[in-house]
């Protein structure tokens, strides 16, 4: 006879909604905070209101890292949510652990029709297996662009926002000569300066097709055009054509642009929403695709932001609920809701087309965001422009940032900095490979 003794389980119960009805309740932990987090909550409320079979409980975790880390902690105690929002760089460990339910397979299992080819390739490739099957549901996607002050460029005699870096350099000189002290507000960012830069130029960040083909990858960015680019940035700063503006220095690049101090800054298209809200009257601004060096063919940029992963170890009802929520998000109405309340771009072709038809992108405050789609879909993704799939990538990014910071502070040359970053990054990659010895990316 087996009787289980369960002690003191009365004292505390998990906080699930005590729905006695047939409603299945499941949890979704997301990382967006502030007003973006509120919009996520709204999508949950809309889902709950649209049907009565499932109830989604959405919990904001104040940041991507906290969301993933809390999920890991919960996973180890078997208290994890069904869906988690995980940012791009945080997915390598999850992928190798296999502790997830690939969304494409899940939808197929529950007979939910989704046109997977509808997703922009520049987005879906980031989250797909080598076979093209999607692991996670793209959700908040963005890509970088640069924002420029139309008046300042016009005053410097620049007709069109430059699409080459050579043209960009000339523009900086012209803007400076026309009296603007800060043509370019620069904030070092691996995402923009290294990753997206390499995508647009179709040059590698690391071997093995940026990590897709195996775990024994090595970083390559100290040997590519990236070095020349960073050296150019350094000389611009030294000559006064660019100034460093980071949030930690008090005035972020975006804020200095918005206040009319600097003429240009680079950021994700998602900032389009914010700039629109905090820009004062009279600031005429536009966006443009990130430039490419002459001699290189422009390729597509890839997505940033995060996607939604369905974790293993849950019940079938919870999975059905998760599938319902994810397909709800994929409807055109939801995409429009998301695109109009945040600066993120639609992730599907039909969603995008629907918005175009409605004239969504014809006028402020949304006009200009279609540039991002152009950048994302400029070419079909090649082996090098699918995305990045490297382990320990957050630490690698941090090494790059530290080394570039040291170079910009004059402590070493940019080549030395990038060499050190690659060296230390390779140690991280090697460690990652040993941790997952014998495994490969699915």
């Amino acid at each position, binding site marked *: 006879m087996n009787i289980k003794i369960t002690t003191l389980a009365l004292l505390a119960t998990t906080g699930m909604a005590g729905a006695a009805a047939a409603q299945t309740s499941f949890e979704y932990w997301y990382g967006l905070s502030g007003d973006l987090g509120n919009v996520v909550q709204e999508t949950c409320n809309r889902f709950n209101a649209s049907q009565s079979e499932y109830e989604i409980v959405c919990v904001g975790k104040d940041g991507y890292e906290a969301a993933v880390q809390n999920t890991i902690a919960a996973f180890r105690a078997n208290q994890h949510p069904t869906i988690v929002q995980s940012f791009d760089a945080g997915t390598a460990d999850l992928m190798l652990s296999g502790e997830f339910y690939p969304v494409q397979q899940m939808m197929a299992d529950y007979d939910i029709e989704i046109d997977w080819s509808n997703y922009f390739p520049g987005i879906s490739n980031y989250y797909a297996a080598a076979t093209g099957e999607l692991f996670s549901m793209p959700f908040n996607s963005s890509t970088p662009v640069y924002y420029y002050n139309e008046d300042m460029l016009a005053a410097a005699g620049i007709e069109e926002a430059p699409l080459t870096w050579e043209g960009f350099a000339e523009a900086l000189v012209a803007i400076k000569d026309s009296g603007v002290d800060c043509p370019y507000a620069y904030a070092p960012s691996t995402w923009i300066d290294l990753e997206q830069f390499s995508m647009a130029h179709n040059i590698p960040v690391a071997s093995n097709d940026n990590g897709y083909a195996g775990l024994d990858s090595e970083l390559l960015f100290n040997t590519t055009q990236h070095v020349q680019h960073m050296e150019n940035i350094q000389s611009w700063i030294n000559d006064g054509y660019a100034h460093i503006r980071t949030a930690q220095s008090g005035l972020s690049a975006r804020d200095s642009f918005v206040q009319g101090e600097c003429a240009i800054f680079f950021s994700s298209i998602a900032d389009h929403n914010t700039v629109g809200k905090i820009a004062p009257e009279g600031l005429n601004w536009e966006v443009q695709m990130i430039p490419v060096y002459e001699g290189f063919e422009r390729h597509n940029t890839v997505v940033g932001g995060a996607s939604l992963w369905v974790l293993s170890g849950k019940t079938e009802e919870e999975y059905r609920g998760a599938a319902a929520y994810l397909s709800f998000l994929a409807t055109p109405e939801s995409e429009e809701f998301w695109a109009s309340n945040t600066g993120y771009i639609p992730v599907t072709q039909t969603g995008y087309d629907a918005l175009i038809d409605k004239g969504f992108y014809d006028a402020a405050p949304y006009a200009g965001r279609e540039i991002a789609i152009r950048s994302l879909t400029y070419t079909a993704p090649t082996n090098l422009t699918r995305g990045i799939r490297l382990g320990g990538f957050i630490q690698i990014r941090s090494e790059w940032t530290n080394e570039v*910071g040291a170079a910009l502070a004059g402590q070493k040359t940019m080549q030395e900095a990038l060499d050190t970053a690659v060296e230390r990054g390779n140690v991280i990659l090697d460690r990652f490979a040993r941790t997952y010895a014998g495994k490969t990316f699915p």
Partner: protein
Amino acid sequence: MRRAYFKNNWIAALVVAPQLLIIFVFFYWPASQAVYWAFTLEQPWGGGNTWIGLDNFRQVLGDPVYWQSVTASIIFALSSTVLAMGMALILALFADRQLKGYKIFRIGLIWPYAIAAPAVGLAFRFVFNPNAGLLSFVNKAMPGLWDPTLNGNQALIMVIVAGSWKLISYNFIFFLAALQSIPRSLVEAGAMDGAGVLRRMRDIQLPLLAPTFFFILVINITDSFTDSFGIIDTLTGGGPARATDLMVYKIYSDGFRGFDYSGAATQSIILMVLVIALTFVQFRYIERRVHYT
């Protein structure tokens, strides 16, 4: 030192049991798991690990960047302790004189302690940033003079000041209380013997402060090693170029952000050993000189 004791050791066992139980469940048990990770390569999502013995330690201790972090942490700890204790002591000694307006000073100097760390960091950001904060006026006079985003030393100073801020308030509470418990008769006797205010401070009040001083010293040093995370996160993020990448921040970055559980566990053990050693030194060599009764 001691003294008179009670005999019944069973009662002793009974009274210490609750706390021991709680720290066993909520500290030692989880900590031992973290210790275990330091000897393996742990996969964050579970699914296995590889035992590698002391390799993690070798890697961490052989990394020059790590020693940079240790140096920065030691500088930070010593500087903020000296700053926080020194200022709090001065403020307490002078507040103890109970001149006019004493109550206002007492209240005003105590409550900053109550403010949450993220709020402190954010508010300090407004004070310190070179382009938009209060200190930007310094830069108007001599451009580029104050720039903690590029100058590692200045960033460290900024972080030390921010870190000491809360501690000053905390220390002040204890110092003032201890000073106020010194019998007035003692101080008056000193005055009648002709000792001036400053002399009295030096000869009478400071020695009697010794037990509190020791308590504050230990707490300040320990806190500045283990509790400085919030300030760094809001103010500098470990930069520029790792100048303010203190040990506890590095642990958080590597573990919580970078998913390197094993590396973070290794560094935690090293941090713990360092702090234990420091505390042990304090107890053994400094507590000797403290007269309790």
